[in-house]
């Protein structure tokens, strides 16, 4: 079983729709969960990070972590064409003895005008 699984897509949705992006993981040592956005031929940029379980909201973005199910989600409300990018989840135990950071392979998202 891979440590982090993420559907590669592409995922195409109409402008204004709610987008749901997800990752599953297998290592229970992960405590920090991140979402990055990567535009074509650019470096990833951090959107949000959360610690442990729960929800975190920032504008149109909501990150959700369910550690019991080892499942994390990113929701995008009122999606815009500028949201078209690849979204990578990442998980980490950085700062603990077993330092590790693992990225998902990313989901390509297309918002259709």
């Amino acid at each position, binding site marked *: 079983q891979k440590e982090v699984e993420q559907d590669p897509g592409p995922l195409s949705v109409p402008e204004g729709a709610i987008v749901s992006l997800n990752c599953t993981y297998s290592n229970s040592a992960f405590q*920090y969960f*991140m979402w990055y956005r990567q535009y074509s031929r*650019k*470096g*990833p*940029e*951090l959107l949000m*990070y959360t610690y442990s379980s729960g929800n975190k909201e920032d504008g149109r973005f909501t990150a959700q972590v369910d550690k019991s199910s080892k499942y994390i989600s990113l929701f995008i409300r009122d999606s815009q064409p500028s949201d078209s990018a690849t979204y*990578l989840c990442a998980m*980490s135990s*950085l*700062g603990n003895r077993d*330092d*590790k*950071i*693992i*990225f*998902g*392979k*990313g989901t390509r998202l297309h918002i259709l005008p």
Partner: protein
Amino acid sequence: DARVTQTPRHKVTEMGQEVTMRCQPILGHNTVFWYRQTMMQGLELLAYFRNRAPLDDSGMPKDRFSAEMPDATLATLKIQPSEPRDSAVYFCASGSGRGLEQYFGPGTRLTVT
């Protein structure tokens, strides 16, 4: 506007040649990461430093790759000798503290023929 800079942006070289990639982290950041991104493997952590000390380089092929931080403003990644399978985009990222909030550079696109 503080940014991570990487040089060169593009590099084409022949198999067997030495390749050196450089990264200037954001001033004041004490954690530096090197990643490699390919379509097949996604984003892989190669090595990371905190306060210039290497903390983890388990993702790096030791026989040909080396990473160093000669000073706080410069990180280097060397490949010697290079092989076609090293063709990828190499990203540097920096952060402060535990490095959970990472800022990525624009990447070096390496092609080994």
